[in-house]
């Protein structure tokens, strides 16, 4: 027991460095995925049929194939195909990992954004237009702020999934949290202790991010922010 503990403590600095890499990877991919996903989600509601079809195909492909396969395709498949065509091409590990993760997450975010926008009652749109707002103004001031609030919980889900999915890029030799753990086990064969420590670190990271998202949800709720009685309630319900 004591030996296991010292083992974990010894491995901890190495694992925490890996956790930092995992966080960087998540932050980069979430940022790019949010931008890409929002654009695709809005494009899915566009009047242009071609645009709708293209974005639909994108979402179907990236949501319908396993992320692991996408990572392999981008990192090993893409350069191999290019080299066969006679084009020298190589992909940096980080670029490939971020590319795969953000392309995949963009597909999910797109659906969240589309659903969020569509969930706003059409009456809101009609009311805004009857007040003389243009379609961009309506989207910016009326529809999107309300939709964003509804999109937050599923976006939080997506963020946590992505955080855990970063462990998949270990297969291309990327030394994030999980691969560091694997490398330590390959050296000392203490599978239980090390993987338990890795799991615990992931758990801490996801718990922290789910807390951050519930804070964000409360902060963005206009009713809870302004109403006096409600702030009291919110304070009481806070742990």
């Amino acid at each position, binding site marked *: 027991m004591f030996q296991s503990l010292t083992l974990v403590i010894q491995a901890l600095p190495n694992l925490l460095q890996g956790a930092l890499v995992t966080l960087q990877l998540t932050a980069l991919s979430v940022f790019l995925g949010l931008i890409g996903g929002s654009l695709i989600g809005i494009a899915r509601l566009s009047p242009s049929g071609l645009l709708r079809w293209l974005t639909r195909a994108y979402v179907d492909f990236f949501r319908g194939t396993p992320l692991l396969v996408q990572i392999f395709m981008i990192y090993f498949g893409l350069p*191999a195909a290019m080299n066969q065509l006679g084009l020298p091409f190589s992909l940096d590990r980080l670029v490939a990992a971020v590319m795969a993760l953000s392309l995949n997450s963009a597909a999910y975010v797109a659906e969240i954004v589309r659903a969020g926008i569509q969930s706003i009652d059409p009456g809101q749109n009609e009311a805004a237009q009857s007040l003389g707002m243009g379609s961009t103004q309506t989207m910016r001031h009326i529809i999107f702020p309300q939709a964003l609030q509804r999109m937050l919980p599923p976006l939080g889900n997506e963020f946590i999934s992505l955080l855990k999915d970063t462990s998949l890029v270990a297969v291309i*030799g990327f030394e994030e949290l999980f691969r560091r753990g694997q490398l330590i086990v390959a050296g000392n064969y203490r599978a239980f202790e090390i993987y338990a420590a890795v799991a615990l670190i992931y758990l801490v990271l996801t718990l922290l991010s789910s807390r951050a998202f519930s804070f964000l949800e409360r902060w963005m709720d206009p009713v809870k922010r302004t109403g006096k009685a409600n702030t009291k309630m919110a304070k009481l319900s806070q742990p």
Partner: protein
Amino acid sequence: MAAQSGIRQGHMVRITRLRFLRQFTFGLGGALILAACGNQTPTSSTSPASPGGDTLKVATEPAFPPFEAQGQGGELVGFDIELMNAVGEAAGFKPEFQSLPFDGIVPALQANTVDAAISAMTITPERAQTVSFSRPYFKAGLAIAVRENNQETQSLDNLKNKKIAVQIGTTGAEQANSISGAQVSTFDSAPLALQELLNGNVDAVINDAPVTLDAIKSGNLKGIKVVGQLVTEEFYGIAMPKSSQNLEKVNQGLNTVIQNGTYDKIYQKWFAAKPPELPETAPVDPPTP
């Protein structure tokens, strides 16, 4: 009258539909159970048929040709597989192969989820601390693979400050980590490390020589060559849980197979050469020139 018969008919339709559904579910369930049994019959009927009656669960990572790989029908083929079958025949047990990732094999042996492992595993002092090895059954060594246009790499010394790809948990990975300034990337299997070299992301791959040579020979990896000679001398052993009771049996089987010429035949088939002399026990600290 007409309405009544209509109702009755509707009733009957519902009854028949219900009956159909029930029969369908029963039928489906029965078929599933039969299928499940059908899957199990071969294993349960073959194991008692084998002489001695013992089955040993043997772990292997089938991504390491020519030692272990998957054949076209998904069956396991390779030097290790044939050798293990021969050893089992000689010692009176039946190996039942289980596919595991290489870095998961030693933990599986520790946890006793498998009884033995044959996976081109080098006998090293670190591994010998956690598992027991049989007598050596193969003499191998590490080799450096580079792209064909690489002229400057001749030995391990040339790999300082270079990028190297290796497989996780192998002796090649250990060797690469001991080179000063080298950037080492680890992959789950040997073919991935070689693909990384082919794609131009690393300068070299350090792995067991027979495997790299086979990959080049089989023609699936164009543009890769092996430089120089073996950089180390290593021996493969069959790994078993620490002080396993099967150790003696496996060693006996290996000795029989090596003495009666079966080993030579299998070696000839997979490597088209005469096997080198094997020591009785492995020098636990492999000499590194």
